[in-house]
């Protein structure tokens, strides 16, 4: 019974995606084309985030900590 609920819910989410992006009104071949493009773009975004975001965060963290380290005790305390 739970599997059925989960499947219905996932199908409902898919239906919402179809309605919001207007692929509900498209013909089947147009819908496949649209899904392909969307999934490709989404996969590229995820891949880019996975590869680049941790490196950028680490570099930013190093930059800011170096900025604060680099300041000697001459700052007014």
């Amino acid at each position, binding site marked *: 019974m739970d599997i059925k609920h989960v499947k219905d819910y996932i199908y409902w989410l898919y239906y919402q995606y179809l*309605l*919001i*992006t*207007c*692929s509900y009104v498209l013909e089947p071949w147009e819908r496949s084309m649209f899904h392909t493009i969307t999934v490709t773009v989404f996969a590229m975004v995820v891949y880019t985030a996975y590869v680049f975001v941790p490196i950028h965060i680490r570099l930013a963290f190093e930059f800011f900590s170096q900025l604060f380290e680099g300041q000697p005790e001459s700052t007014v305390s």
Partner: protein
Amino acid sequence: PCSEPANPCCSISYAYLVLDEAEGRFFSFWLVNHIVHNGGLYKRPFNEAFEETPMLVAVLTYVGYGVLTLFGYLRDFMRQWKIEKCQNATEREEQKDFVPLYQDFENFYTRNLYMRIRDSWNRPICSVPGAKVDMMERVSHDYNWTFTYTGRVIKDIINMGSYNYLGFAQKAGTCQEAAAKVLSQYGAGVCSTRQEMGNLDKHEELEKLVARFLGVESAMAYGMGFATNSMNIPALVGKGCLILSDELNHASLVLGARLSGATIRIFKHNNMQSLEKLLKDAIVHGQPRTRRPWKKILILVEGIYSMEGSIVRLPEVIALKKKYKSYLYLDEAHSIGALGPSGRGVVDYFGLNPEDVDIMMGTFTKSFGAAGGYIGGKKELIDYLRTYSHSAVYATSMSPPVVEQIITSVKCIMGEDGTTVGKARVQQLAENTRYFRRRLKEMGFIIYGNEDSPVVPLMLYMPAKIGAFGREMLKRNIGVVVVGFPATPIIESRARFCLSAAHTKEMLDRALKEIDEVGDLLQLKYSRHRLVPLLDRPFDETTYEETED
């Protein structure tokens, strides 16, 4: 109504404290009510609300239209390069080099969106459009370019789309018997215009009755409601006159105004500051080049605006009209029979004097279950229109059974047939309206318009939901009318329910249950219970600047 309308737009605001379920906190909002103040222009509270479009919904709607536009370009490209067969109208091969007959780009929206969801419109019905209706089932095998009938008839669909406000669309009853008797006496056709040989005694009887019903001196009836507006406004105003027309006026009023040749200026929808500013400018500056005074100033408003469900602010319009000495043309197509304690329209609803409205126009199509239109007013006006109106001279007169249907239904509403059926219907419609609107608002839909208007627009916004809503409701045996661009602004597509006195509470409950279900399925419950206060405020200097933008 006070005789000296010093401040026609005065209002009292009330602050309300409401729990916002979505965000789980209290917030306050202002509800602007025109209640007994400043001489009592309004005898009853005027509750109108147009909730703002949520930002996320607007963005997603534009995204949806963007996707459709891209696919539209793709399909047009394929049609032009003959990769796909073009199924809409094109010229023949020999005429390809001539001036184009079919403006290709203007029909872009029709070809690429309307065609895809076209099965929600033009549905063929095969019974009387009462509270329940039968519909012929049809399928399309080429994505709505052509339809075929399966042969099955879908029976007893709850009809939430017909303009059957008082339930007179019936195939049995006193109206139908009277009309059948007149049909056997006079026949169906008149074969002439009013001015030639088409003036029956039935028409004279109808006009006297309509004049008595409205409380005016005299009235004239025409065969078609649209033609009443478009053919009579040119007879009343001409070049050198000024027409002040509401932003959301019906196409018949716009066409009549354009045909007349007068100068047209538009004021914001139901906004009395905008109207007053235009009136002041017109009187102060006169005609554009010559600065001569305008020959006539005519204000065109409607009783109920059918796309918004809003009611005109008639007491203020009449106060302004008297102050600036202009004329008022009131189109009561949807409000006659549907508003007011005795069903006499928006004048009755506000408790005003019918003689204050110079030209009262209405149609018999909506509340009386017939066809045609009328104009009521002073005797001199109607006598003039009998001679100079295009409709009177050129249009065929009304068919006698239709006239009899109107006569019987008007007598029923007035109570002159000896029963209280008419009064019961008017009260039932008012109850249905209040109940239906309250329940929909409680469910969380965004509903536009006035609390008392039997036209209920429910906002859909996204283009795919227009088609989905129509289809899902038909699957559950409820017939609704969905509206999109160009009848509404592009992101504000809606489903429009028209309530009827013929709907029983069980039918309404069933319809509400199905709307609730479909609303959850399609995620249509956008309301965040935040009402935008109406744009009018006590009149002061700063309101001019704000109506400029």
